[in-house]
């Protein structure tokens, strides 16, 4: 078995595995650094309790977006109400007109 060839039949070449290990170590260092920075900005109590970060503002923002959407939909529904009322009015006028021209149509029991 040769160790000097720089290759391995198990899992790529030695240099590939070294590169993967270096990459993993770098990722772990980055994670640790990110975590340290994240914790550094947080309040800590005298007994070591770390104050959580909560998404109040994000949640309020999302709910505000929904609120605007509902309001806009309500405006559209108000328009639909007006259209429905206008159609009902037109329908009533048509029926009234029919009744005036042919009263018998409005009275099914009428004998012509």
């Amino acid at each position, binding site marked *: 078995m040769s160790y000097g060839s720089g290759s391995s039949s198990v899992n790529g070449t030695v240099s590939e595995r070294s590169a993967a290990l270096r990459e993993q170590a770098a990722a772990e260092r980055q994670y640790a650094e990110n975590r340290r920075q994240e914790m550094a900005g947080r309040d800590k*109590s005298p*007994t070591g*309790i770390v*104050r959580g970060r*909560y998404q*109040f503002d994000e949640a309020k923002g999302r709910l505000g977006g*929904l*609120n605007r959407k509902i309001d806009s939909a309500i405006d559209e529904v108000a328009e*639909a109400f007006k259209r429905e009322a206008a159609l009902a009015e037109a329908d009533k006028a048509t029926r009234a007109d029919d009744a005036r021209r042919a009263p018998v149509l409005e009275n099914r029991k009428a004998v012509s």
Partner: protein
Amino acid sequence: MGTRTFANLDEAEQFMESEFIGTERQKHFNLDVIEQERKRISKIMTDHHAQTETRIGRVTDFAFRIADEGEGRVDEVMDDLRDGRISAREAAKQLAAAKRDLNRIAKEVTDSQTAEERAWSEVNRTPSEYRRDVARRFPALFSGGRNQITLSTSDDD
């Protein structure tokens, strides 16, 4: 040999620093009593804070879900209205229900923010301060000599 009881940790510590007279063994015993009490209170504080965090997490998660589902629901209602599957009255009824849900969860988010600030101010203290606050708010827990810190002394009393 006697005992001395203290209402709080800082008083017990003060006693050990300036007044205690006793054997080395009693001193170790007393310092251990104080340390155990400090750990017990610290754990209560951590649990107290964790419970608040869990409750707040649930409220914010719920708010995001309501926002997601609410937007989809509004789209469905408006599609149904435009396609004539529901009347304007029915659409208005469904939108009003969505708005009620929204207002309820928005209030819960605001209340949670206030609760978080209060909970943090309650635990952002020393165990001694926390214990004193609890005693002030729930005096019955400490009445009749309960929850006192008892130290051993060489006094006769």
